[in-house]
């Protein structure tokens, strides 16, 4: 069996890299976009695709605030602020 030279291997590696770089870049879909699309269906909201970046941005900020709130440890018997009285 013929062994490939070190040079051939290196050329192939470069060729692979060039082919990869030449491939059109695929836009990575933000996982929140799937969340927004899935959430919109049961709410019967029709979200134009041009609105999605802004909605995503606002949702990211709100979820960051939510994470700060959720990180605060409260006892199991903590009552929410609004208390209903029958």
């Amino acid at each position: 069996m013929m062994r490939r030279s070190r040079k051939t291997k290196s050329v192939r590696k470069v060729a692979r890299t060039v082919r990869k770089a030449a491939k059109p870049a695929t836009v990575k879909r933000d996982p929140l976009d799937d969340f927004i699309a899935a959430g919109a269906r049961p709410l019967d909201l029709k979200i134009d695709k041009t609105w999605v970046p802004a909605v995503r941005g606002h949702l990211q900020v709100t979820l960051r605030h939510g994470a700060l709130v959720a990180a605060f440890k409260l006892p199991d018997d903590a009552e929410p602020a609004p208390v209903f009285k029958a």
Partner: protein
Amino acid sequence: MDWASASEIARAVANGERSALAVTEAALVRIKSLNPKLNAFTDVVADRARAKARALDRARSEGQPLGPIAGVPFAAKNLFNIKGLSTLAGSKINRSHPSATRDATLVARLEAAGAVLVGALNMGEYAYDFTGENIHDGASRNPHDVARMTGGSSGGSGGAVAGGLVPLALGSDTNGSIRVPSSFCGVYGLKPTYGRLSRAHTFPFVASFDHFGPFARTTRDLALAYDAMQGYDADDPVCADRPVEPTLPTLERGAEGLRIALAGGYFRKGASPEALEAMKRVAEALDVRRELEIPEAERARSAAYVVTAAEGAALHLERLRTRARDFDPAVRDRLIAGAMVPAVLVNQAQKFRRWYRERVLELFNDVDVILAPATPCTAPKIGQQTFVLDGIEMALRPNIGIYTQPISFIGLPVVAAPIPLTPLPIAVQIIAAPWREDLALRVAQALEQAGVASAPRPAI
């Protein structure tokens, strides 16, 4: 009398120096001349105002008693019901709503005390706004520099009072919408305790945090209007069944004997040199050296943000389904995002709210009043999208309220007192324990009498 206070006008009308009709006509002329520059009014109810003024003059000539603010022109943010007008709440969508068949409770109470309603005021769409900009009606413009924001969402209220179009206006404050325009426009604003003043017959935003209150150019005028509007209202389930607690009789007691502290920590972080200078002047005038930390204020602001997003979205869900393209995109996209907020976060925020309330109320065992900046900066330019906060460039629109949100989150009463820095004013928050509006007003009066707080007259 185009810069006269409500108190001065009421005195002049009561003793016959001026007729209510003459005062009303002067206000209508001023609105006609200045509103094209300031864009504060969305409707003027001239016929109604003249009819009310004539009735007041007739009553006086017949020797009938006049109310404490007889003949004082005032205007209301356009989310207050005004009989005969659609309640716009700054939106395009509500223009197709039928006209209101009655006035909001607070409008009716001011008129019962003799004030004369002259119109409805511009505001950010559905009150989800700190800028005073409005895509449908145009931006409210700051009388101190018309290229700058009034702040919002009660932008027209701040602009109308600061510009001298009226001496008194009504606004609402969910996260800062009275205190932010007070700061940017350099006028006094009172956000009373949650549940103190009726919200009945207004267009809501976030039921958990919606408050209503007055704007004026003097502390005395704030107290006059506030006292006239107090009292239980069965039409608002949140309105507390408490007796009227007048604040005018104790106003002149000033800050004497009050334990006052400055809010440090979170409330210094991100403050501009102007906000810090305003705090310094106030601290020196009141000889306050004590500083305290409001615990978990940053988390409180986050919790207010989450609840606002979710409750606002719930309110507008049907409109988002059917008329999404009729919203201001900046408001619509925030509301859609709010509809996606997991319920567990909202519930946790409401649980945290109770915890935070208890911790903050403990502070009031040792102090009567806490001072904090109202806004991190003076009025930005209209259209400005970002600003630098604590060295980081941030979106402007949602972040102007960083210092107001942790306070309204638990419904504490606050007077925003304007400090007349040049070229632009900025306000400090005078914060008291629940139901102690009287103390916040006393401190504001002390600062006004010391010449530290005042509503500067703009050159327009």
